[in-house]
């Protein structure tokens, strides 16, 4: 009590800042609760990431110690045709499949965004492919795309098209994988649908009062309001498409048959590390992937400011 009075009297010189006490239980609990995850984050993400950068500069064949060789792995990459081919395939795959998938998912979500007797059924149907394990889905697609025996070409021919022998023709094999990866678009569709259904009813009605054209509402109201979901799906989609593996290895094996047309970047890393036991080289490939993804993510998030609308933001 005496000390308290003194402070009040002296006034001008404030008492020393207290150690935070009342909230300390909460602060301590926060660190404690997050501790297992912080350990996990360090052990399985941060430290391995740094080690990958290091291993990438060594000649390391699992047996025996790693030998430091500087940038030789990167130099080897420069002249490795498989690296260039797989990088090209993977970039093409990502550049085609992600926009296609998002556009289709968005279209489907717009179609699904109305209440009919069958809405529940449609939602279920479009979600089911996501539940098919990638391996099983790929095996089924191999049958579907077999000329003469699979229904896809039969149907296309019935409509007067002249479809290729998808999996044997180097020009079309990658398209088969693109189809295969677009098929499970239920997740993206439902995320978009969630966004559409989150648009407040009064905003939607105001837009209808402002203009009779449905296109105006779609372009000026609906799309801007779901840009956060578009960003979310875009980022996740690009990052995952760079890592496509199961579909590629089921259809093209480790060599990317036919003629390396389905050779994906992850497959090249896989075979470098676990077939040729050249871990150093695989780490260098992984490092390049890391920086490409980092760069792209930064690019997307940087531009996102100009096209993504966030609630509570005033512009």
């Amino acid at each position: 009590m005496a000390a308290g009075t003194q402070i009040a009297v002296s006034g001008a010189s404030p008492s020393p800042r207290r150690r935070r006490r009342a909230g300390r239980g909460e602060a301590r609990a926060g660190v404690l609760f997050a501790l297992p995850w912080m350990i996990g984050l360090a052990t399985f993400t941060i430290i391995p990431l740094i080690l990958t950068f290091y291993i990438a500069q060594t000649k390391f064949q699992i047996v025996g110690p790693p030998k430091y060789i500087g940038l030789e792995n990167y130099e080897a990459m420069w002249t490795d045709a498989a690296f260039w081919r797989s990088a090209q395939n993977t970039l093409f795959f990502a550049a085609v499949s992600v926009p296609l998938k998002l556009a289709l998912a968005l279209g489907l979500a717009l179609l699904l965004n109305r209440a009919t007797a069958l809405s529940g059924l449609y939602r279920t149907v479009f979600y089911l492919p996501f539940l098919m394990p990638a391996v099983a889905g790929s095996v089924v697609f191999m049958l579907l795309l077999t000329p003469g025996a699979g229904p896809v070409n039969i149907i296309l021919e019935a409509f007067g098209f002249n479809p290729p022998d998808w999996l044997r023709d180097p020009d079309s094999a990658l398209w088969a994988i693109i189809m295969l990866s677009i098929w499970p678009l239920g997740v993206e569709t439902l995320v978009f649908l969630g966004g559409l259904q989150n648009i407040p009813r009064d905003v939607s009605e105001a837009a209808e009062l402002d203009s009779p054209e449905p296109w105006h509402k779609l372009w000026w109201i609906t799309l801007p309001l779901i840009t956060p979901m578009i960003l979310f799906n875009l980022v996740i989609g690009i990052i995952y498409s760079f890592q496509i593996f199961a579909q590629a290895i089921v259809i093209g094996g480790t060599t990317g048959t036919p003629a390396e047309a389905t050779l994906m970047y992850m497959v090249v890393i896989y075979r470098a590390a676990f077939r040729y036991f050249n871990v150093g080289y695989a780490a260098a490939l992984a490092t390049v992937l890391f920086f490409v993804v980092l760069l792209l993510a930064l690019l997307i998030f940087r531009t996102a400011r100009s096209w993504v609308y966030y609630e509570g933001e005033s512009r």
Partner: protein
Amino acid sequence: MGAVTLTGVRKLFGTMEVIKGIDLAIADRELVVFVGPSGCGKSTLLRMIAGLEDVDYGAIEIAGRDVTELAPALRGVAMVFQNYALYPHMTAYDNMAYGLRRAGLAGAEVDKRVRATAAMLQITELLPRRPKAMSGGQRQRVAIGRAIVRNPEVFMFDEPLSNLDAALRVEMRSQIARLHRELQATMIFVTHDQVEAMTLADRIVVLNGGRIEQVGTPREVYHRPANIFVAGFIGSPAMNLLPANLHRGAALELGWGTRVTWTAAVPALPDNAPVTLGVRPERVSLCDAARAQASGEVTLAEHLGDETILHLKVSDGVSLTVKAGGDVAALVGDRLHVAFDLAGACLFGPDGRRIAPD
């Protein structure tokens, strides 16, 4: 017993100071209301007293005990929250019993106290229900019950009535006033609603920008506001604050040229000092042109039944609010003349503080 003393209390969020040095003594059994515009720090201050926010500088005493570094549950306080904060997965009974059980009370004692409190609040039939199955008013009463059952030294209310509809709010207000009389406990009540503050408080603490603007009884705060902020904040419709110049010899020259005589004592000021005259709308009356101290065109007439609120544009940038009788039939565009009753008026100096009446 339940006195609360704050000494030099300050709080920073990052580098932003949200509570800027509060000294306040709340007497035992007093009902004090913290009032102020949103963002003034009233809730933060309450939460600091409860121990839910850290105190960066200064000290808090409750019942003669320094509790600044004590856990919330050990401070002898209980709180009723804005959204009631009832545990949704527990019945009203368990909600009320939870704190007692945490304090290690025996089952029989817990049961006795919960039932006694429920009987007192007439919520016995709610005890087996979960919050979801209750109306807003019922939840509110259970939340109050949860606070009472712990028999705290100090009750805290964080805008507890803001989610209720108007009729229920009046009812709960009188119930809280009755509780205060019956429980004989110290209560701190936070609100942004000045009607709540005026009707409930023994003393009102007006906060603004993390500082105390004034502490006083409802009458003091209303009739003798410490400064222009309090004058404008307390009272609805708000007090008219008119620019004026004070001449030596007690003549007050109003912004639009009218001179009135100021009879109350004022401290020495330089001649022609810019001051602000504060006149409550009910102290402005309509009159004929001959006695007019101000004239203006009606820009808005609000007919409320028993009274009429008129807004007059007196000159550029100066408008007046007049509270007239319900029978006044003035319309927008009418030109009206008014006179001031300066007996109840306040004068604020150039720094915004009240200089008269002192």
